[in-house]
């Protein structure tokens, strides 16, 4: 293992030292503890023990002066430094470095490195195995891993982004069975008025085509501790609801599925929904007149005590469900928007930002977003929907008052004030936001 001269035998063949330094709240350099260092250290310790790796020890260290790159760890005697930001990173370090003896180059911190390395978008190569017309304007698409292996696991409610040949990135919920890693089922509504992603998919994607997609991300998870579940889908919003119904069947959990569309002919995935939900399924066809559609007061009024409601579809439906369930409490009402229809007339004003990892001051003018300003400064910040719906651009906020304009953070998350969607949300006028970027 060791590449350095040794004067003695080693007590530990591999000694992992993880920074867990905690600075005062709001410190502009932030710290490894606020970036999750302690949780990751605990994961590493647990995995090392679980895997029975011998002569490896994990120690909590104080500040190692790599604050801008943290959370940081160093492995001795190899003298290899790593940063890591999620459990997948931890797992890869353990599998590759500790077990396989191969450094994880994408996570290595070089000795003279001062700034975070640009992150490559982690894309999956898939092959389209089936395309079907579900309705006149909805296609179902099945994709499999291009290498024939398993796709990453996902949970009901998750979505992936498809990267189009035209360079667009569009989110689609996974409708397939979360236990099945051999393929993903997507539903795509043709939306001529949108930015062109769905039209490209409708007009171009055919069986045998290769596509690139992102890994599944779940902003709409089931709460499987609830005693009962009311699932409400509007149109193409059926896709995550289908995966939820499959999961709930597997758990033998009580649920009702309310599927709202205009007409029976315009109803996608009918066979699947009927086969999966059976007697738990109710269709609501309104013929284009919402007053003839779902009676939310009845549906929610008859719900078993403690039930959670999940709604996915047009904003009008989501707003109606949220209003009807206003007394339920936020933790029992789950929703996912597919497109934003801003109903507030925000006034934009300039404000300042400070990028903690880069020690960089920037000003966000009234007519630009944080995302745009950060990109202009040469930082390849990730984003997808750019409407405050998908959480791809989410950034931790170290200090400063945020004006949240996204549709995804809960009231509690917003009130905590330690995270924001930089595509739409802003700082209060005259405010300086310190961002973990």
């Amino acid at each position, binding site marked *: 293992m060791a590449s350095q001269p040794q004067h003695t*035998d080693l007590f530990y063949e591999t000694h992992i*030292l993880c920074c867990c330094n905690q600075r005062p709240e709001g410190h502009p350099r932030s710290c490894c503890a606020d970036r999750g260092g302690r949780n990751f250290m605990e994961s590493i310790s647990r995995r090392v023990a679980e895997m029975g790796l011998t002569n490896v020890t994990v*120690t909590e260290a104080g*500040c190692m002066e790599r604050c801008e790159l943290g959370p940081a760890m160093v492995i001795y*005697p190899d003298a290899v430094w790593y940063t890591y930001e999620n459990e997948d990173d931890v797992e890869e370090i353990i599998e590759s470095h500790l077990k396989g003896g191969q*450094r994880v180059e994408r996570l290595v911190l070089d000795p003279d490195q001062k700034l975070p390395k640009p992150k490559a978008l982690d894309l999956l190569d898939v092959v389209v195995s089936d395309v079907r017309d579900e309705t006149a304007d909805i296609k179902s698409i099945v994709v499999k891993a291009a290498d024939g292996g398993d796709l990453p696991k996902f949970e009901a409610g998750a979505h992936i982004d498809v990267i189009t040949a035209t360079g667009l990135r569009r989110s689609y919920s996974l409708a397939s069975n979360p236990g099945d890693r051999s393929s993903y089922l997507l539903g795509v509504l043709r939306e001529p008025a949108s930015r062109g992603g769905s039209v490209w998919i409708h007009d171009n994607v055919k069986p045998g085509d290769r596509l690139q997609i992102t890994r599944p991300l779940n902003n709409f998870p089931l709460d499987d501790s609830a005693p009962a579940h009311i699932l409400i889908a509007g149109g193409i919003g059926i896709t995550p609801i289908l995966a939820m119904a499959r999961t709930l069947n597997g758990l033998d959990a009580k649920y009702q599925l309310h599927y709202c569309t205009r007409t029976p002919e315009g109803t996608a995935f009918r066979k699947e929904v009927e086969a999966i939900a059976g007697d738990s399924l109710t269709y609501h066809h309104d013929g284009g007149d919402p007053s003839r559609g779902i009676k939310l007061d009845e549906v929610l009024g008859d719900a078993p005590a403690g039930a959670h409601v999940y709604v996915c579809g047009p904003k009008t439906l989501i707003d109606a469900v949220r209003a009807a369930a206003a007394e339920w409490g936020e933790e029992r009402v789950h929703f996912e928007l597919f497109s934003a229809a801003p109903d507030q007339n925000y006034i934009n004003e300039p404000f300042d930002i400070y990028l903690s990892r880069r020690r960089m001051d920037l000003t966000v003018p009234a007519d630009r977003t944080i995302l745009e300003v950060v990109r202009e400064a040469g930082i390849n910040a990730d984003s997808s929907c750019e409407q405050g719906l998908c959480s791809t651009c989410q950034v931790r906020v170290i200090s400063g008052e945020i004006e949240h304009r996204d549709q995804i953070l809960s009231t509690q998350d917003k009130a905590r004030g330690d995270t924001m969607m930089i595509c739409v949300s802003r700082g209060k006028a005259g405010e300086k936001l310190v961002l973990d970027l």
Partner: protein
Amino acid sequence: MNDGDSGRKLLYDPHIFFCLEENQAQPGHTCCAEKGAMDLFGHMRAFAKQNGVTGIRINRASCLKRCENAPIMVVYPEGVWYAVRTKEDVEAIVKSHIMEGRPVDRLIVAPGDAAPQELDAVEKAE
């Protein structure tokens, strides 16, 4: 790790971890902090600075799990462990090991070394 990169640039050479643990001692032992580790750590940092040593880091660490040798520190990448008691001990490590590259043999602890006498006595008494 593969051995192909010896001699590559290190961020800190050496990188010293000083156990400053207060309340995690293994049974029968006393924590480094209770045996004066904090003062020794502070003195080592100050002494290295006075002597103009750069390119190293003397780092705080939690329990290094060598409580039988408390106060304990480890010097990486060499992997040399020292049990220190006095200011003179840490000064010797700075002068000899860090500045001149000669480890201080009398302070080194290594796997297989007998634990110090008084701690043996404590363990037996329990």
